[in-house]
């Protein structure tokens, strides 16, 4: 088991390096000197040159990449052009906001998605099925910014139950968590439903009935654990992607998280910051996949042994 995990971690490393390389290339083929763009036409050429040299931009691109990789090995993501602060500390400041939002949103999506999936499967092709699936799919289909605005209007502006935006109190997270969670609940509901329906056809479910288990016992104890396997993979990846920042939600609700940081980086052509957030995100996604794999083998003894 431990060996398997170590193996998986080692396999992730070349993936990570490859992804970083691609990101670096893609972000650096955009023509033009970012310093020049940032300073606009007012700046004198010698100032631009000096700042460019300060950030190492006068060197050839391949050399810049090597320097970047060397710093990265030491965990240093560089310095933001715009804010003149280390990217590490910017991400460290933004991450707690994103983390809180991601956890809350994930919980909302499980609370909606998993029961909806189970109930839909039990009442397959009935009105209950359609209602629950409809409700969870509605979340996927609504554009996030639109749902966010409607929610803000009703619950913050009209009813004044929660703050409109910001991240000062825990109440501020309620609306964004619901909007974001609901939007990923549909996928979880659909996956839970289809897996459960499949598992309910299995021979060991017939055995469970024959033992004298109740419906709840059959479904929650014997079917659910098997049906959950693929759902868990999805949930781990979902959490990872939520952690990489929900760009639209964070923007609409003015939450200073990773998503917002990335948007700001793009608007300002702040390459080190953009690279930093993208690489941070990549690491999270790879870690999410890794955790999914590990959870998978914790639950399924057949995989554990392979």
């Amino acid at each position, binding site marked *: 088991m431990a060996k398997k995990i170590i193996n998986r971690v080692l396999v992730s490393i070349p993936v990570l390096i490859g992804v970083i390389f691609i990101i670096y290339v893609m972000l650096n083929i955009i023509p033009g000197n970012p310093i020049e763009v940032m300073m606009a036409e007012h700046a004198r050429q010698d100032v631009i040159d000096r700042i460019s040299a300060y950030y190492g931009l006068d060197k050839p691109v391949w050399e810049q990449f090597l320097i970047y990789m060397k710093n990265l090995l030491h965990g240093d993501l560089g310095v933001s052009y715009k804010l003149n602060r280390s990217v590490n500390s910017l991400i460290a400041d933004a991450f707690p906001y994103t983390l809180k939002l991601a956890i809350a949103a994930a919980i909302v999506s499980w609370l909606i998605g998993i029961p909806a999936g189970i109930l839909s499967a039990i009442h397959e092709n009935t009105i209950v099925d359609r209602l629950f699936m409809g409700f969870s799919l509605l979340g996927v289909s609504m554009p996030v910014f639109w749902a966010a605005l409607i929610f803000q209007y009703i619950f913050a502006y009209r009813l004044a139950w929660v703050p409109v935006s910001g991240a000062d109190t825990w109440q501020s997270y309620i609306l964004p968590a619901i909007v974001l969670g609901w939007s990923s609940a549909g996928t979880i509901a659909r996956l839970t439903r289809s897996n459960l329906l499949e598992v309910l056809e*299995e021979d060991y479910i017939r*055995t469970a009935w024959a033992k004298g288990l109740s419906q709840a016992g059959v479904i929650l104890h014997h079917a659910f*654990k098997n049906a959950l396997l693929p759902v868990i993979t999805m949930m781990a990846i979902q959490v990872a992607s939520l952690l990489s920042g929900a760009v639209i939600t964070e923007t609409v609700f003015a939450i200073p998280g990773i998503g917002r940081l990335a948007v700001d980086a793009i608007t300002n052509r702040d390459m080190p910051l953009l690279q930093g957030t993208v690489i941070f995100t990549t690491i999270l996604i790879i870690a999410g996949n890794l955790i999914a794999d590990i959870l998978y083998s914790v639950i399924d003894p057949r995989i554990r042994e392979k």
Partner: protein
Amino acid sequence: MSEANTLEIRHLRTVFHTRKGDLAAVNDVSLTVPKGKIVGIVGESGCGKSMTAMSVMQLVRKPGEIESGQILFRGEDLLQKTPGEMQKIRGDRISMIFQEPMTSLNPVYTVGHQVEEALRIHEHLSKEELHRRAVEIFEAVGIPEAEERLKSYPHQLSGGLRQRVMIGMAMICKPDLLIADEPTTALDVTIEAQILALMKKLRDENGTSILLITHNMGVVAKMCDFVYVMYAGRVMEQAEVFELFRNVQHPYTAGLLQSIPRIDHVVDRLYTIPGVVPNLLHLPAGCGFCTRCRYAQDRCYEELPELREIAPGHFIRCFSTNQELSGKEESHA
């Protein structure tokens, strides 16, 4: 009824409401399992053996439905029980094992957990007691190193061991009736013999009545006290086993008997009854077997023969006996 019979099915009819119409998987079946006896149901694939068993368990799934009849278990009609009462009976008083030992156990729990669960549902016992009984039953069904094996997952065991686990799970509450639906079909011949011997041993030790479903006449001969031959949802012939093998009277049963593989005969191909099982949606108006019966007359196509007693306890659903029929054929020749 007398307590001498563990199970008495009367005029059971189980239908499937399919899109193309209703189909009677079990059609007016009456069957008795006397206490402590092994009763076989035999017949080709699709003749309604499993559905008869699932009806007794009341585990027929939609679009299937038990339409009419009585299922008397120790004198009480199971069809009058509430779902809650049925749940208490399943796995405790009546238990069932299935054909596919490979897939009938849940892959994500240890076999020990699954066996103990069967007991825990029905009896309130301490953890230690549950464990002790599980070890005990594993030993009873001949699983070596019971302590160790309890911790195994199903995929770590061979087919034969898994079927032993299934039997142990079914027997742990000491049921009055064990329904075994083709318990050895998926196993090779040596393992089959061991499993059958085990079932017989458990019957002898506990007095459990067994309803044994099979399509193998050889298994019937080895195991059963009584046998019911089913075809297209109906009982075609029923008799005490010695009587049946000595005195086969239904042309269908005669065909089944010819298809037993025999060790002393080298054959290229097993004999099979010519023709195909009729579609249950479009059964002939008369005898279900008429389309494949080489003795069929006009009458057989129009009129359904009743089950009639041709010797004490020996019933056939045919207008003539095999004796008459084969005699007639010889005189024609």
